[in-house]
């Protein structure tokens, strides 16, 4: 049991949990994978290389679908590169295959290889040929080999996980800072709605809706983020200057924000946006990695540096650990609090812009209950709600734990109601671990 304690006692103890979850879902979603399209062609070309020392004559067969066409075209290209003579390309079902083979044999030319998609191998037409035609016995039939690989670990799925959690993870950066100052911000969810609605509204009303220029879109989004930051600043000033408990101050702001978003949009979606508006939410300019994920990673690196290397980071920890001692050491406690709440607001605004971009519309229903997922990510990540302690990367791990559990359950077909129960239990387990850690692994009953 000692090693378990050691793992959980470290700053990033939850990383272990994340790894275990990933392994678990990989194991449970392990399945036979059928390569498709271009991938299938590449796999098959490699097996052909192994089976033949010298190139020969080949007939290529694929279904009459998009992926089938991609397969035949790519394979045609690859085998020609290797010096193969392609006698023909068959596209379609059994009749087409039959025709293709017949024409090859009728020309009385030899055929070394039939390279086809998996579905062709067991076709009756092919088996009849093998029985009836002597020459057919010399023809090797090859299809792309299937492999075993977890659905969870497919690159597309992993990127999907990251993309789905990006908004929550970005919000969680701001929340981590606030929780480290022993506060909490309940308004981030409704600030998402404010930002999404405001950004799209500004683009529609001021910059010509779907005709808006890039500059117009940037201005609209920037304005929305600025306003959210100001709303955060307002909550922060309630906390710093009037001593209002953060829970109450931000609860008020949560209602205000939600109401504002409905007022501005009239309760309807705003969708009059240019095509290119989805660049941030759906684009993937950096080697297929979604732009939102790239942005998330950059922000986490910045926040981590801020908290670990700069005076500002030190001050934030000190304010959370002991505000009076910090003040008497010359730390501008109130300004720090204002700054932290304002940046949390700004990050919520950014989250709203990303969401608007993902859905290519602004809707006052965005971000509903997000504050709870964000707080869950922070807590699971090991930041103490009593302030003064916590790590930004811990929060990223927390966010990914939530995302992986959700994704894994989606892949295995767990109902969404059950998913909520599981997520709640994970949250409770995380808090329990935190408590045990603080008490030195003793249960005091």
């Amino acid at each position, binding site marked *: 049991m000692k090693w378990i304690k050691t793992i959980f006692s470290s700053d990033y103890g939850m990383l272990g949990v994340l790894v275990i979850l990933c392994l678990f879902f990989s194991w449970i979603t392990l399945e036979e994978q059928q390569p498709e399209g271009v991938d299938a062609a590449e796999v098959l070309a490699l097996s052909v290389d192994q089976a033949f020392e010298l190139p020969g004559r080949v007939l290529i067969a694929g279904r009459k679908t998009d992926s089938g066409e991609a397969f035949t075209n790519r394979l045609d290209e690859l085998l020609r590169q290797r010096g193969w003579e392609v006698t023909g390309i068959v596209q379609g079902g059994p009749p087409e295959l039959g025709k293709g083979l017949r024409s090859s044999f009728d020309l009385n030319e030899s055929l070394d290889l039939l390279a086809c998609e998996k579905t062709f191998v067991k076709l009756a037409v092919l088996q009849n040929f093998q029985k009836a035609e002597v020459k057919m016995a010399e023809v090797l039939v090859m299809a792309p080999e299937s492999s075993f690989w977890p659905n969870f670990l497919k690159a597309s799925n992993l990127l999907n996980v990251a993309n789905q959690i990006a908004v929550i993870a970005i919000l969680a950066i701001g929340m981590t800072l606030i929780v480290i100052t022993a506060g909490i911000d309940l308004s981030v969810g409704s600030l998402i709605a404010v930002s999404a609605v405001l950004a799209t509204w500004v683009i529609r009303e001021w910059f010509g809706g779907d005709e808006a220029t890039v500059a117009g879109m940037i201005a609209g989004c920037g304005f929305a983020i600025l306003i959210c930051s100001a709303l955060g600043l307002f909550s922060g000033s309630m906390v710093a200057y009037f001593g209002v408990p953060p829970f109450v101050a931000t609860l008020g702001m949560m209602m205000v924000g939600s109401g504002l978003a409905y007022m501005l949009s009239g309760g309807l979606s705003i969708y009059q946006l240019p095509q290119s508006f989805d660049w941030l939410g759906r684009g993937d300019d950096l080697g297929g990695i979604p732009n939102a994920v790239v942005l998330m990673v950059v922000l986490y690196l910045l926040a981590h540096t801020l908290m670990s*290397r*700069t*005076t*500002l*980071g*030190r*001050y934030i*920890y*000190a304010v959370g*650990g*002991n505000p*009076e*001692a*910090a*003040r*008497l*050491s*010359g*730390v*501008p406690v109130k300004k720090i609090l204002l700054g932290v709440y304002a940046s949390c607001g700004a990050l919520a605004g950014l989250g709203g812009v990303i969401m608007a971009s993902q859905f290519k519309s602004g809707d006052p229903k965005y971000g509903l209950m997000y504050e709870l997922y964000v707080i869950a990510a922070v807590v699971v990540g090991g930041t103490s709600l009593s302030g*003064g*302690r916590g790590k930004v990367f811990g929060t990223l791990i927390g966010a990914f734990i939530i995302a992986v559990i959700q994704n894994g359950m989606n892949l295995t077909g767990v109902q969404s109601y059950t998913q909520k129960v599981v997520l709640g239990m994970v949250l409770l387990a995380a808090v329990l671990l935190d408590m045990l850690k603080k008490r030195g692994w003793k249960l*005091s009953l």
Partner: protein
Amino acid sequence: MSAGNQYLLELKGIEKRFPGVHALQSVDFELRSGECVALLGENGAGKSTLIKVMGGAHQADSGLVSVQGVLQSWEKPTDSLDAGVAIIYQEFNLVPGLTAAENVFLGIEPSDFGWVRKSEEKEKVREVFNRIGAEINPGALCDSLTVAEKQLVEIAKALVRDAQILVMDEPSAALTKKEVEQLYLLIDELKLRGIGVVYVSHRLEEIERVADRAIVMRDGARVGELGREELDRAKIIEMMVGRKLENEFPKEVRTPGAVRLRAKNLNRGQKVRNVSLEVRAGEILALTGLVGAGRTETVRLLFGADRADTGEVELDGRTLQLGSPSDAIEAGICLLTEDRKDQGLVLGQSIKENFGLPNLKKFSRKGWVNRSLEGQSFGEYIKKLQIKVSGQSQLASQLSGGNQQKVVLAKWLERNAEILIFDEPTRGIDVGAKFEIYQWMNQLAKAGKGIIMISSELPEVLGMSDRILVMKEGQLMGELVNGPEVTQEVLMSLAIGEHAACL
């Protein structure tokens, strides 16, 4: 000294290790019925750990604990209470929102099926309060009680649970002289009844008054025992520190220079009324008076921690605008607070980070902290101030009082402040560290800094300062130049306000 089973409480060969610390090394302790044993030692000597073992809050790694000859194996604090051992910690375990009576019977209420028999409870509490001479209304909320009254409630709590052994951790720390006197009488009375008392204190003169025997600890081990007739200040100190201490106060002869800090007509509510003072270069100015006389409130104004209603502060002839502590720090004034835990240190952070907090401007460029520079500088202070730490990343909460104070001192020394205000600099600090702090104050004065020292300990005031200001109810009662004619009695009479004097 007859057979071991005659002891009321006996600990034998107690061992306790914490990560990196051997807190208790084969410690023996014995207490007879009707006896008061003083437990002495510097901070960090292992007294607190030993008490916690007595109270079942810590389990010893090895060793035996027996009560009235019966071997005990406690797993939680209530087990020890059931066996008759009650611990009264410095921080009381009382619920502020409940009444005195409810606190006394908390957890053992006389009740029928969950319904508390209130009148019986009150009756019993009144009886116990009578027994210990406490004039407390059983229905008074704990919140509204004084420290001394809360302590009596704790004692009553122990007595209604039939405790035979009472362990008191620094019981006199927050009591007035009169209240301490009453506490002595109560202890005498408890002894007559056969109750054994363990008395932990830093104040040696109290030990001489109250204890029958003293057990001295150092570095986690028991180093000796002194009988009643051997209880002598010099001897106790020698045992605790492990070396001879010729003079408790290393007073030096100085000639103060020009005025550095001058405060004129400071006012803040009722706490500070029309206070004017000046501090000269190379001078230690003592500010004394009873607790609550407005001393801390006054220096908080000098430091900008609170804002003055009226009045002004000058440093080297320049008027200061003190809106916040950072203004004062910028100008070169620093405050070593009385309460290190709540105000002086961020306990959950490392000592290095605490040290760096007011000095980050120096250790950073454009907001980037140069951690190696910071660590290097702190390392020098650890050596210079002889701070006992396991490493720079040790948490501030894990240090003893004396070492915490040294960390606070280090962070202000690095600031190179011109005016240093020490608020009760040696409270809760062991003898050895005390002496070192005094030496540092002398050294700073020699370097031409201005020093203000708040202290309630009159020997300390007389032993260290050049000039003394006495306060009462927010006002200055008198200013005295320290000399042979200034005695504790003179200071005391000023502090209680028998006559205002200017010598």
